[in-house]
């Protein structure tokens, strides 16, 4: 069996060819072909580790001082690889159709396709390499490639800023990661994950620090709250397939890193589990709050990503706690639920972004307040977006309910060591229920306001349904969402072997804790069957019924502008959580009884964390300016400062030469 590493040169060749070729179509074909080839290679190679076989170990020789690069694809890496590469392929296919209007007006797409190849390449590196430096290289390749992909529309200043914001944030994460690796290197004098692991397994004071540093780095990558501020801007700026790949696939590398170091670290301490659990809950809570108030569809979906990685972290935190308490059932439920949620989220989030891209392509706007009635003009997109919304809100019979059910099972099982712990876990479950209900509100709002009713703004153009190259990825994801919901073994089999990496795993225990899932799936299937039959029957029966206008109490001067808007829909809810979500309200409302001019009212919900960051930065800048302005004004102060600096340098030099 050819080594999966052959995909690396394949992808590089594909990238170079894509850049070099003149014709956009040729670039696209080359990129698709090489990615398909890479996909095939990787899937064939990682099949055995994924389905129960042993890990693949490879050593790649390299010039000194590195000498060899160790690769190891175990079940966890295989799991992530098995869906990252195919989804990148689907994203590239989507790009072909999505960017066609840009290509038609003369843009060169070669670089874009090459970057997509590089993204796929970065996955192969990140998920398989065991050397910290090459891991950082893959990390950096992914970050820079993603940045360049985000600024496809670089002519707009807003988009350039969003891209820059993303670049800076991702490099802050990189620095924290480098700090963690440096700390580990100083303790182990090696760059190998294996030696990191053996150090981390032993209890030491540095263990907690390294855990926190790695946690922050991976939280920045995966857009946890409060490190998420770059995500909504980047998603709003990027083309739809780039947003989809970032949200669904690229940022999952953070969760992968987290899990990889979890396995390397061995049995965690209890405080680590609580930290992860609470952090995940906070992310889910704030993510979903912001989701419910955004007016830009893609920003909305970006915050929803924060919410979902929070839910996955909730599961991981539960797993940590189970591991530290020595309760295998909780550990298995937590990690199984969290891992499966990562996959489920990738499935429905990509679908939602693809559908949002189709909306943008047809209407040139993703502003909820201007859309409406799109279901009449884009019925296929509407149906696919609806499936994505229902899956995203964890509603039966789709896949996300099952992974959340597993997390619920763990939180509500009452198997904690003390009543206090059990109470906190149940409160976390209640928090998860709240998050689910709010995401149902946000989903109904996003779908209902943009696709249902009547168009709110006549100036929004009427477009066409997306072409086949855009529909195929959407159909694949929608089909997967339904299939994984009705046949959970599809997802569970992929996750099972990753669970086997944990020392507390026993196949019997896993079967025992997942047994209630069968009842849920049976009920879901019955419901799905009934819904299918009832839906078809009602659809057919209604075709011949009489039609008329919506009953508006006989009011003859109605207009589509009187419909509920996105902000009206979430107004009552956002008012309850006013303290967490600052709302900016701009209004120019006339005070006289018969106004001569039309008034204006607009509400925007800014990101509280981002606002605070900018405030602090601005204040810091002011402070620095203030201080630096003083120095030249008082020469004696400058003289004294210079003397101090000389003294300190002299002292250090004397110490080091002694």
């Amino acid at each position, binding site marked *: 069996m050819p080594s999966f590493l052959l995909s690396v040169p394949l992808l590089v060749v594909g990238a170079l060819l894509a850049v070099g070729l003149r014709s956009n179509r040729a670039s696209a074909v080359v990129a698709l072909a090489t990615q398909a080839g890479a996909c095939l290679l990787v899937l064939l190679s990682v099949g055995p580790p994924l389905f129960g076989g042993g890990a693949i170990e490879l050593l790649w020789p390299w010039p000194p001082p590195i000498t060899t690069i160790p690769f190891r694809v175990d079940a966890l890496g295989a799991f992530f690889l098995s869906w990252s590469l195919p989804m990148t392929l689907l994203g590239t296919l989507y790009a072909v159709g999505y960017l066609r209007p840009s290509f038609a007006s003369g843009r060169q797409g070669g670089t874009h396709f090459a970057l997509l190849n590089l993204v796929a390449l970065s996955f192969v590196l990140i998920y398989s390499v065991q050397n910290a430096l090459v891991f950082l290289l893959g990390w950096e390749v992914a970050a820079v490639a993603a940045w360049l992909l985000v600024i496809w529309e670089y002519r707009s200043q807003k988009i350039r800023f969003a891209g820059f914001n993303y670049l800076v944030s991702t490099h802050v994460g990189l620095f924290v990661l480098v700090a963690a690796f440096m700390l580990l290197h100083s303790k182990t004098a090696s760059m190998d994950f294996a030696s990191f692991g053996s150090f981390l397994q032993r209890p030491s004071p540095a263990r907690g620090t390294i855990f926190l540093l790695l946690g922050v780095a991976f939280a920045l990558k995966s857009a946890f709250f409060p490190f998420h501020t770059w995500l909504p801007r980047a998603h709003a700026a990027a083309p739809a397939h780039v947003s989809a790949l970032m949200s669904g696939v690229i940022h999952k590398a953070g969760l992968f890193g987290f899990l990889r170091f979890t396995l390397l670290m061995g049995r965690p301490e209890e405080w680590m589990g609580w930290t992860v659990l609470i952090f995940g809950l906070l992310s889910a809570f704030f993510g979903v709050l912001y989701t419910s108030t955004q007016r830009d569809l893609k920003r909305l979906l970006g915050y929803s990503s924060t919410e979902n990685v929070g839910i996955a972290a909730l599961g991981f935190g539960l797993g940590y706690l189970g591991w530290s308490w020595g309760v295998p059932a909780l550990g298995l439920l937590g990690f199984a639920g969290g891992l499966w949620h990562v996959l489920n989220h990738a499935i429905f989030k990509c679908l939602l972004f693809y559908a949002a891209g189709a909306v943008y392509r047809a209407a040139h706007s993703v502003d909820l307040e201007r859309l409406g009635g799109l279901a009449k003009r884009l019925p296929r997109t509407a149906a696919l977006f609806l499936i994505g919304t229902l899956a995203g809100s964890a509603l039966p019979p789709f896949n996300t309910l099952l992974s959340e059910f597993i997390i619920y099972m763990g939180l509500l099982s009452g198997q904690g060591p003390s009543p206090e712990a059990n109470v906190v876990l149940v409160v976390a479950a209640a928090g998860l229920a709240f998050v689910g209900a709010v995401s149902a509100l946000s989903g109904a709002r996003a779908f209902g306001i943009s696709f249902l009713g009547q168009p709110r703004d006549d100036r929004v153009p009427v477009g066409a349904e997306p072409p086949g190259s855009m529909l195929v990825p959407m159909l694949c994801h929608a089909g997967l969402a339904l299939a994984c919901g009705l046949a959970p073994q599809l997802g569970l089999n992929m996750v099972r072997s990753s669970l086997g990496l944990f020392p507390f795993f026993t196949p019997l225990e896993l079967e025992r804790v997942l047994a209630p899932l069968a009842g849920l799936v049976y009920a879901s299937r019955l419901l799905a069957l009934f819904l299918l039959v009832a839906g078809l029957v009602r659809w057919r029966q209604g075709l011949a019924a*009489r039609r*008329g*206008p919506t*009953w*508006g109490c*006989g*009011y*003859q001067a109605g207009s589509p502008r009187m419909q509920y808007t996105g902000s009206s829909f979430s107004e009552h809810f956002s008012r309850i959580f006013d303290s967490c979500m600052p709302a900016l309200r701009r209004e120019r409302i006339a005070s006289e009884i018969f106004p001569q001019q039309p008034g204006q009212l607009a509400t925007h919900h800014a990101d509280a964390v981002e606002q605070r960051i900018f405030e602090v930065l601005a204040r810091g800048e002011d402070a620095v300016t203030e201080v630096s302005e003083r120095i030249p004004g008082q020469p004696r102060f400058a003289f004294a400062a210079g003397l101090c600096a000389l003294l300190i340098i002299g002292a250090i030099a004397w110490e080091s030469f002694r």
Partner: protein
Amino acid sequence: MSLLRSLRVRLSQGTPYIGDVRTAVPEGFRGLPILAETPCGACRACVEICPTQALAAAPLGLDLGRCVFCAACEDACPHGTIQFTPEPKLGAGRREDLLLTAGNSEPLRVKASATFARLFGRSLKLRQVSAGGCNACELELNAVVNVNFDAQRFGIEWVASPRHADALVVTGPLTRAMQEAIRAAWDAMPEPRFLVAVGACAISGGLYREATETDRTFFESVGPSLFVPGCPPHPLTFLNALLDFLGVDA
């Protein structure tokens, strides 16, 4: 405790609903006019004085659909030929049934509709549209569901949306301003449905028959299935007419 107090208040009120609406006759109500065979000297005093030209002489006839129950004719008649009785049952299923002739003494009974009785006999939802009237009919229709008359015990209820309704109950002479609204309300109703005209204004235009703002084309395109005369009609008139129409036994 306020619950006990509410219970005490409720018990002190007794049973305010009218037990048998089919035979109740309201005291002091000006209802069915009885036209005596004799004596009528054809002096045309009643014809001249009627504000809506509801009366005809030789032979004596009274159009209940135009009558506003002012009893000016009763006062004007030198022979006492016209007598208003408190009988409330005045509804009719056809416009011509409202034309009273001399010698009538029986209360008007609506013929039960076969189709509607089967469908709505136990559950009838009504939607009211007020098309330019003085609101007296609307007040009386409002009273149909109060504690005295309690139409809900027969499954008859007012609903908010014509989509939920089986019958459209129209009051007022139908003005030009309400044309589109009433058309919208009727079109919004699912079949099977029927139209009820309540009050002199709705049935014949009443006092506003000749007014410039009156526009009764809707009634010409959709004929009412039930006519409830009065100005305004008593809730018992309306209720009995409906119950007869639906074939509900006394």
